[in-house]
């Protein structure tokens, strides 16, 4: 059993991380008992499992994910939604309304038009067909206020923090509403436009510095120093 990295060290694809009976976790692969990284990221050993936390990632939808999408096309019975992923999602009218509507009489543009941002949940995705979304669940629907920020989806766990610590810290200090989509889009809203703007700056800072330890302390300091006048 040999480890070739220190905890949270930056590793690159093909780098030998360990030899021996370790379990290969996320973003690694093994050849026999040799474990190699597959991405540029931070290597971690936890409970005998070796993981690499990627520094950049492509969002691949998974059922149950909360995402923020942008309507790119309106059809007769469905919408096409860009979810910042290689796969364009479909939102069917039957997954958008609690009561069935008569699509022969109604124009779907009335509800969501091209360019609208929506908060939605991924219903199904099996990689052979485009993902299906639903907005029937609580908290889903069209975004009609606030701003949407886009970051790399690999940084989403850092925005949320351990058990939501980071996001609740920002929410309570700045009195803003935040919804984080798994696809890296984040909705921010506050009655105070300055708080909104500052939250966006914080999110960008977290994205930039996610791989550097002491992040929470730096964000706390930033939050303490700020003066937001109404």
């Amino acid at each position, binding site marked *: 059993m040999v480890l070739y990295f220190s905890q949270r060290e930056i590793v690159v694809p093909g780098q030998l991380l360990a030899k021996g009976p370790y379990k290969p976790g996320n973003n690694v692969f093994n050849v026999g008992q040799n474990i190699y990284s*597959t991405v540029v990221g931070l290597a971690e050993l936890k409970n005998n499992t070796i993981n690499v936390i990627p*520094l950049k990632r492509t969002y691949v939808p998974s059922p149950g994910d909360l995402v923020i999408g942008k309507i790119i096309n309106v059809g007769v019975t469905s919408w096409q939604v860009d979810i910042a992923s290689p796969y364009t999602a479909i939102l069917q009218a039957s997954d958008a309304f609690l009561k069935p509507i008569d699509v022969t009489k109604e124009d779907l543009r009335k509800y969501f038009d091209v360019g609208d941002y929506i908060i939605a949940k991924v219903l199904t995705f099996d990689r052979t067909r485009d993902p299906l979304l639903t907005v029937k669940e609580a908290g889903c629907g069209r975004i009609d206020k606030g701003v949407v920020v886009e970051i790399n989806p690999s940084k989403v766990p850092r925005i949320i923090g351990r058990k939501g610590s980071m996001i609740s810290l920002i929410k309570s200090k700045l009195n803003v509403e935040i919804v984080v989509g798994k696809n890296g889009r984040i909705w921010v809203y506050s009655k105070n436009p300055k708080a909104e703007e500052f939250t966006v700056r914080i999110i960008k800072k977290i994205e930039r510095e996610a791989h550097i330890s002491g992040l929470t302390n730096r964000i706390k300091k930033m939050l303490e120093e700020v003066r937001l006048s109404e």
Partner: protein
Amino acid sequence: MSSSRISIRKEQRPPKLIDEEGRRVDGRRPDELRPVKIEVGVLKNADGSAYIELGRNKIIAAVYGPKELHPKHLALPDRAVLYCRYHMVPFSVMERKSPAPSRREIELSKVIREALEPALFLEYFPRTEIDLFIEVLQADGGTRTAGITAASVALADAGIPMRDLVAAIAVGKVEGQIVLDLCDIEDKYGEGDMPVAMMPSLGQITLLQADGVYTPEEVKKALELAKKGIMKIYEVQREALKKKYIELKKEVEEEYGKK
């Protein structure tokens, strides 16, 4: 302008490709690489990018994707399509090169794609496309191998899962000697050129081409020499990928330490 530059312009064959002391036309030893420099993230618009300088070669590689593939009927149900374009800009060589893709460039695009595909986990992104562009800004022999080297760094920078980086270098035969990293003159007037690409940690060769005539011993020696060169290039690739993040870390730590 120095006399050496003029001689290159006229493309005269130097009287000797290796002198009595064993030095090559640019003063290198037979087993010596040209200086290598790799930079990561040089293009803001691309998902991943890299710039390489190998001697006088200057090459830029850009990666876009994985993204939705158009037209859709070209999509593969079980994996991503790697689209690769190797291209030399008109001013990359002494005599203007037509910007239209030549027969050679189309072939090299295919060869480079096939050298990189084994390193990529394309099956993670079925029905999508990964675009790879390699633009040669200045050419001086060995652009396909330098292109592969830069491209694999750009792919890693784009966050695409890979088994290993691919590092490549050419070896060849000049005046009966096996030499590493041929420059343009050696490539043109030497007896043989053998580009090799490898996944160094896994010890697998993904590209092996050759022109010229070699004895089995010479092939063995050439591959060993290529491996030596590839290991050096691999180290530069790894450092380049880490540098971007390590520099940011230093910057943040300094800024935070001051407060």
